[in-house]
């Protein structure tokens, strides 16, 4: 027999499969409690294989309840196990991880995998939890019934790992499947279909494939256009004609075999109706009053963390990037290369890294919610409310994540099993007020609203800020409703979701996963933001027009350092005006004028297409407020308020500021969001629609605000 080279771990979600994977490989991967969270192919090298043995690759397949795939990630598991993945041989050994505390449902997948006819092992995981719950499984009896080795493990405690490794290295012969019986009315049809399959399907798997194609549309689709597909369709018609419930044939047959086996091999030492710890926790967490209250508190905590605790770290990152820029300026000779490094590259890196603290904190809380099992409860609590607006309970977490940044929000939408729910969620997530909008909000609110407080309690500025966030969220709900009503009509695939038992999180894995996800953000979004920052720098720096003599002379004749700075800022302002960005701004001005925007604001909007907060630094340059001005700089605020059109009218009135703020609430000024949406949806179609509808919303709303305001005489 050839030595084992590859092992696949299969299993239901929430059975500790990934923890087992970590124990076998030493790699640190995702452990989660929320159904369907492992999406990508995760592999590692089996630890502790004897010297001289070939390397054994262990693959952690996405969690799946069944081999009739209902979602993209379940499809991956199915394809991997049946050898349908392009460029990948089927695994030499399959380890099905089954939860000892929930054996009955877990055996459904086990019996399906056994029917594939590959060398198969069952890892009976969570043995410790089963013991604590008073459940004993007669392991030898179970192994005998299944016809394959069963290894009890506790991945959390590292128990049974050595035995499992030994079993993997010395695998059993190909599994023969268990003798479950199909309902007699369906059996003849399955026999005929198994014979009708193409000759390349191995004999051991023909029956499995025939049943799958008969009962699952997803599996029938694999054979689309073949004579076999025609035979299946005919068989379905004949069975439906005879009123045979053939869609239930496989589940009825398998559970018909499983239930008596479980009754024989599982013994419970506690009364079945005794409430577990998990049940008692749920009595509070999903309580009519305490449940939503607790959820609100959790949200408050996350917001507090993302908006306040992250600030010192963000300030530190900005300081370091600034210091690095000053260092480079001191070390490099003046010139184009120096400008490229400091204003293009370093600014680009800074634009990415500054979000890292918020993203790490957010991922920490999301990971905690997933690992404890609370995430599934938030979906349970919120489903009814979210469904009113065309979303699903599982959309809550992506929507919340997006308050920090749309990128983790879009990535979190992977947990939605229904494809239409997932697309709708991704489409509306960028309307949530993300942290990149914050600098824009701060600048204009501070410039145009008094610092006073309504009734002496709620500050006007805080009120305005909250209003902008509410506006974004309300519009996200409206957009979801419209998409559900007119584009993705009808109910989704439903909400058949497991509420997994609560479990204590494992800090080591929680931390590792937080870092892994942050890496994805930095590499995927970071490269794009970085490239765009350099591109924008080019657009804002070229063509380099020599300053008019008066300005050049002012720089040379400056008497004090302050005068020199002011003169240099005036030169920079002049050059940006003459740059490509400045020209874009002028070209766009006629289109933007109905919104109240002059060419400088238009240029700022063009510049901020890469990332919203760029408009602040773009305006700072255009207003010669100095290169280091930010949204809290008084100099920039004053420059904005002092700006006048040639006829003496102010460029920025409170109405213009309101119009601009509304524009930034709705416009999708973020390349990274588009890039991530493209990656998650695997097509440019929806990202383009997303950008267009948000731009239309932004333009329309700003137009309404500005022109409406003028009609009311506020202009």
């Amino acid at each position, binding site marked *: 027999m050839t030595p084992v080279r590859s092992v696949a771990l299969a299993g239901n979600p929430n059975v500790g499969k990934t923890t087992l994977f970590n124990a076998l490989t030493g790699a640190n991967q995702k452990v989660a409690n929320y159904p369907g969270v492992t999406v990508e192919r995760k592999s590692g090298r089996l630890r502790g294989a004897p010297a001289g043995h070939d390397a054994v690759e262990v693959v952690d397949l996405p969690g799946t*309840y*069944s081999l*009739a795939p*209902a979602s993209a990630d379940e499809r991956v598991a199915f394809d991997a196990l049946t050898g349908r993945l392009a460029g990948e041989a089927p695994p030499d050994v399959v380890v099905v991880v089954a939860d000892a*505390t*929930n054996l*009955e*449902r877990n055996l*459904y997948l086990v019996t399906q995998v056994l029917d594939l006819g590959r060398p198969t092992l069952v890892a009976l995981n969570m043995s410790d939890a089963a013991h604590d719950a008073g459940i004993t499984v007669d392991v030898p009896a179970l192994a005998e019934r299944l016809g394959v080795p069963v290894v009890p493990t506790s991945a959390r405690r590292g128990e049974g790992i050595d035995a499992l490794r030994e079993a993997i290295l010395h695998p059993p012969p190909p599994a023969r499947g268990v003798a479950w019986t199909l309902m007699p009315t369906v059996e003849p049809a399955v026999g005929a279909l198994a014979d009708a399959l193409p000759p390349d399907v191995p004999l051991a798997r023909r029956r499995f494939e025939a049943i799958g194609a008969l*009962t*699952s549309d997803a599996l029938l689709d694999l054979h689309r256009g073949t004579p076999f597909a025609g035979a299946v369709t005919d068989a379905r018609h004949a069975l*439906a004609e005879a009123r045979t*419930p053939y*869609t*239930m044939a496989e*589940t*009825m047959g398998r*559970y018909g075999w499983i239930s008596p086996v479980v009754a024989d091999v599982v013994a419970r030492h506690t009364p*079945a109706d005794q409430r577990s710890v998990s*049940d008692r926790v*749920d*009595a509070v967490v*999903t*309580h*009519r*009053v305490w*449940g*939503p209250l607790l959820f609100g508190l959790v949200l408050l905590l996350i917001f507090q963390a993302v908006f306040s605790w992250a600030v010192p770290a963000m300030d530190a990152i900005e300081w370091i990037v600034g210091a690095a820029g000053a260092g480079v300026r001191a070390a490099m000779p003046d010139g184009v290369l120096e400008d490229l490094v400091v204003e293009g590259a370093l600014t680009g890196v800074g634009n990415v890294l500054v979000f890292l603290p918020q993203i790490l904190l957010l991922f920490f809380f999301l990971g905690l919610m997933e690992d404890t099992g609370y995430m*599934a409860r938030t*979906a*349970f*609590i919120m*489903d*009814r*409310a979210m*469904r009113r607006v065309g979303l699903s*309970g599982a959309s809550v977490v992506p929507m919340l994540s997006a308050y920090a940044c749309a990128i983790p929000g879009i990535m979190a939408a992977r947990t939605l099993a229904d494809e239409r729910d997932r697309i709708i969620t991704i489409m509306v997530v960028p309307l949530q007020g993300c942290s990149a909008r914050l600098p824009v909000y701060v600048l204009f609110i501070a410039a145009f609203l008094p610092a006073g407080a309504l009734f002496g309690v709620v500050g006007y500025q805080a009120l305005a800020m909250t209003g902008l966030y509410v506006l974004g969220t309300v519009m996200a709900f409206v957009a979801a409703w419209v998409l559900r009503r007119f584009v993705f009509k009808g*109910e989704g*695939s*439903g*909400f*058949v*979701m*497991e*509420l*997994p*038992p609560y479990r204590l999180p494992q800090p080591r894995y929680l931390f590792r996963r937080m870092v892994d996800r942050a890496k994805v953000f930095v590499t995927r979004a970071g490269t794009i933001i970085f490239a765009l920052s350099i591109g924008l720098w080019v657009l804002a720096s070229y063509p380099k027009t020599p300053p008019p003599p008066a300005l050049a002379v002012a720089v040379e004749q400056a008497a004090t350092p302050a005068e020199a700075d002011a003169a240099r800022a005036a030169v920079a302002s002049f050059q940006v005006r003459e740059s490509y960005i400045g020209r874009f701004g002028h070209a766009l001005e006629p289109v933007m004028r109905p919104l109240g925007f002059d060419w400088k604001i238009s240029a700022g909007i063009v510049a901020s297409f890469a990332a919203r907060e760029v408009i602040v630094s773009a305006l700072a340059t255009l207003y010669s407020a100095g290169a280091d001005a930010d949204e809290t700089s008084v100099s920039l605020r004053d420059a904005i308020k002092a700006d006048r059109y040639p006829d003496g009218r102010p460029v920025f009135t409170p109405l213009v500021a309101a119009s601009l703020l509304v524009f930034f609430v709705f416009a999708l000024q973020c390349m990274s969001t588009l890039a991530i949406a493209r990656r998650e949806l695997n097509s440019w179609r929806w990202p383009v629609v997303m950008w267009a509808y948000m731009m239309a919303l932004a333009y329309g709303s700003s137009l309404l605000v500005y022109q409406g305001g003028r009609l009311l005489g506020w202009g």
Partner: protein
Amino acid sequence: MTLDALAPGARATVTGFATDAPPARLLEMGLLPGTAVEVVRLAPLGDPMDLRVRGFHLSLRRAEAAHVVVEPA
């Protein structure tokens, strides 16, 4: 009667489906004719339902539960 009509705490046995094509996921999760089911609780807004089926918790919208015919225990 159908599953959605059961009050929290009620137990019943599934007898069939009020639709020709019950959702596959429901069947795979083991909610089949003959299966014992208990309504543990409803979500705070009354929907979805938290059910105990074959020893684990399954969440189901009432609209979906309306397709499941049960015989109260």
